[in-house]
């Protein structure tokens, strides 16, 4: 059986049985990166040498029969928004093009403790702002299923890396759908945990009240395992929740009896691509055939989601990105006339246009005289949206929807119309505003062969239920085994 394209579970058992060493495994993935990343451009930094050293160390300890972590010897690709000690962390921005963090993000520490192999840092939209991975200052990542199309974003590099078989696992971050949407576009599994489930320490902030780190994998079991490794309380993040982490990987294969799958009537709106809608309806049939009950619920404030998100996220971003001023670290202009000009020129040169657009939006929304009308009102509507979900989850276990209303866009399609791109976030944003866990699972392809994903959401801290529901679907369909050919 081939290494490339194997699931995490398969790789782990081959490693455990001694059929394969981590060095062989890591070498195979590094070779694969060498072969195909020229076309896909998923990686900003390939951590080859260190990854092989790490792999050799795991092999040595395995031979010595020393205890090993849950992901011992398995490569994980890391979105370049997560700080890695001694390894460049750029956020795909000129501003941080040469930034080498002096510390590891909490999730990186967790990966190291689990003996995972950090294979490289993946491309993304600049500072995670975008839905196509086109706003990266360095490169445009291509969708492995159709190189003329985007992999989605902002975690497009991580999604594409898994879809192209360059890593069995990857970490992404999700502020408004940045894991779930590219997972759908690339036909891989991507999960955003409950807000507070995973420590944000060491994740370069975009929208702090929305950001959450989560796994990509080529099957639900891999996602469950990676989610289990990175979850848990961390005293360095005040919003990290101190609640025990269930062993997701132990229960994920148990089907749920009496599963209630909800659909929201507000989700079937104009602008929903008919092929995507059909995919969802087919998925609902699958659940029905597995004994689930399909229930229609109402999320009356759905239509405000995009507006609320594009006030809250840019407001927080305008503040979070104020630290990139060229004074202490990061890009500083070489030509300036005074202190104010140094700030303006450094930031003007260091940030791309989408980042500037969102900083402007947020600065405006927080300004005196506008705060009440925009930011404060957005917070109020956010509460209403959360209440919608609370009510819905009294009647259902998971809510099913498309991951995004349309299949992946062509490269450059949204460059003249960012608003159209913002509207594509309609199905994913709610989970961030309400802090809910969500997962995107491959659900088929359009006639043109473009991947379509379905999204499942659950109540806060119901990741276990979410993963089991997703796994039921995955086992009942043939989409998991499908691999992009490059």
């Amino acid at each position, binding site marked *: 059986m081939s290494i490339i394209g194997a699931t995490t579970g398969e790789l782990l058992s081959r490693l455990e049985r001694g059929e394969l060493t981590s060095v062989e495994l890591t070498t195979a993935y590094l070779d694969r990166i060498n072969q195909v990343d020229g076309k896909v451009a998923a990686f900003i930094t390939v951590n080859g040498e260190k990854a092989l050293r790490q792999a050799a160390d795991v092999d040595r300890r395995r031979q010595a029969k020393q205890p090993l972590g849950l992901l011992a010897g398995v490569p994980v690709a890391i979105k370049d928004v*997560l*700080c890695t000690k001694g390894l460049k*962390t750029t*956020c795909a921005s000129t501003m*941080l093009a040469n*930034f080498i*963090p*002096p*510390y590891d*993000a909490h999730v990186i520490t967790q990966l190291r403790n689990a003996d995972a192999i950090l294979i490289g840092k993946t491309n993304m939209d600049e500072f995670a702002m975008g839905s196509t991975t086109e706003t990266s200052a360095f490169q445009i990542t291509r969708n492995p299923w159709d190189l003329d199309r985007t992999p989605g974003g902002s975690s497009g590099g991580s999604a594409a890396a898994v879809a192209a078989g360059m890593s069995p696992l990857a970490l992404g971050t999700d502020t408004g759908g940045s894991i779930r949407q590219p997972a759908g576009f690339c036909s891989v599994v991507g999960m955003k945990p409950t807000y507070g489930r995973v420590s*944000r*320490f*060491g*994740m*370069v*902030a975009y*929208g*702090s*009240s929305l950001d959450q780190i989560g796994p990509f994998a080529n099957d639900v079991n891999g996602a469950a395992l990676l989610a289990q490794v990175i979850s848990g309380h961390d*005293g*360095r*993040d*005040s*919003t990290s929740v101190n609640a025990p982490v269930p062993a997701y990987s132990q229960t994920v294969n148990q089907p749920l009896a009496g599963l209630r799958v909800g659909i929201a009537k507000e989700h079937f709106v104009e602008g929903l691509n008919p092929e995507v809608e059909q995919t969802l309806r087919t998925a609902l049939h699958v659940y029905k055939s597995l004994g689930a009950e399909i229930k229609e619920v109402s999320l009356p404030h759905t239509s405000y989601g995009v507006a609320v998100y594009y006030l809250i996220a840019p*407001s*927080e971003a*305008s*503040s979070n*990105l*104020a*630290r990139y*001023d060229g*004074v*202490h*670290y990061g890009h500083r202009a070489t030509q300036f006339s005074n*202190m*104010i000009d140094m*700030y303006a020129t450094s930031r003007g040169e260091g940030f791309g246009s989408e980042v500037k657009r969102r900083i402007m939006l947020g*600065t405006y929304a*927080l*300004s*005196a005289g506008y*705060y009440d009308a925009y*930011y404060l009102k957005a917070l109020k509507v956010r509460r209403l949206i959360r209440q919608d979900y609370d009510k819905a989850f009294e009647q259902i276990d998971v809510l099913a929807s498309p991951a995004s209303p349309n299949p992946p866009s062509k490269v450059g399609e949204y460059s003249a119309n960012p608003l159209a791109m913002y509207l594509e976030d309609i199905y994913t944003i709610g989970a961030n505003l309400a802090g809910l866990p969500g997962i995107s699972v491959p659900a088929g392809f359009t006639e043109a062969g473009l991947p379509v994903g379905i999204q499942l959401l659950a109540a806060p801290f119901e990741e276990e239920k979410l993963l089991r529901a997703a796994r039921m679907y995955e086992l009942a369909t043939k989409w998991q085994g499908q691999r992009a050919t490059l």
Partner: protein
Amino acid sequence: MDYTTIIGLEVHVQLQTNTKIFCGCSTKFNPDNPNVQTCPVCLGLPGSLPVMNRTAFDLAVKTAIAINCQIARFTKWDRKQYYYPDLPKGYQISQYDLPFSHDGWLEIVINKETGEKKKIGIIRAHLEEDAGKNTHDETGRGQDSQVDLNRAGTPLLEIVSHPDLRSAQEAKEYLEELKLLLTYLEVSDCNMQEGSLRCDANVNVHIHRDGQKIATPLVEIKNLNSFRNVELAIEFEADRQYRQWQQDGKTFGQVNKETRGYDAIRNITVAQRSKEEAADYRYFPDPDLVPVTVEEAYLQNVIDSMVEFPAARRTRFIQQYQLSNYDAAVIIDQGVVFANFVEHVAKICGDGKQACNWVTQDVLREMNDRKLTIEGFPVQPPVLGEILKRINDKKITIKSGREIFLNLLNSEDLSTISVARIDQIIQEQGLSIVADSGQLEAVIVAVLAKNAKAVADFKGGKQSAVGSLIGQAMKEMKGADPATVRELLLKKLAE
């Protein structure tokens, strides 16, 4: 010149925590080694997150209770956004619309003789993080400016008073009382040189004309780095505003609030670039920090563990030790260690009034002469108390007590100062008051026998002759009470 000065003070106090408010870095004052007390959090590195230091919050609550503030049951953190090189995140974590405390007061003594008091209202007290420190090249040669972030993230308590202060003197009293309270509570060392207490003053004047009250435009004076400068700056500024009004007639509301800095060398205030017009801090709740809720039991715990406040102690001293307002103030205003010293002495000697007198006169005088602190004073309460006790018990005279006190202070080896040493000195120098009248009588008889001429003089009507006889008897019996000696001597002479 008929006007009243109206003053409100904003005081920033660095709280005495070991670590910074949102990270584990040390808060030590360390200007000589810049940027060594820093970490990703206080450097504002990408991905770093703040975590509230509970001790800083506890100290802040303790202070707020001591200045009679209401403690909010729900409080949150906000970001105050502006660009400056000493502010690495581009925002300061502070508290905006829901400070943890509000609506309190501090009582100050406005007349030390009469003890007349006045309540100064406190609008709010909130917590925030301190910024770093910029050092600019001041040679004018265009050298680099430098930033030291050792101070960045030090917990700061901002206490904002109502404009209830009516003179520069009152402003100074308020600051002194506040400083005394903060040091009593051990929440801050209030060292103005090191910047642990900083003050801005909002000043204007109300001019009285034809039964009307005319208010001048508001001015905020910054850079006030000593209590004396606060006083001088306010005095200057009030007069300047009066003269300005005479010139242009501009009144409150017609001009924006102005920021002025105090130039201590020229003793004037100078207009500064005004932030008030341009600045929009775009405050919003910090999403990285969870709001803080305060439970009743927690508050009760803080209240129960509170020390006696200076004002209460002043009142108690007046009653318990029968002190004047002035004397009580002298003791309390010296600080908590000094007041504790007095009380410790009082407890041992059993006479509060006597303890107060000795400590405020003899101890304070020697402290000043010898440039000593009360903590470093060689004769500590256990010894001083025993000296006074011996005076009270009429074992030695007051004069002998002073001699022993000075003798101990002048000890070459300070470690020899002890209660045992007191008795040793009494013994060596025969300072013991001789209660045995038989022994004293024998001495007097001997003195009379030796001084037949003086006796004859006295008997011949020369009253003054008795003086030399007493002197001689005292010389023989060092510890004798002069009054007793005199009485006994006269009795013998009369025989």
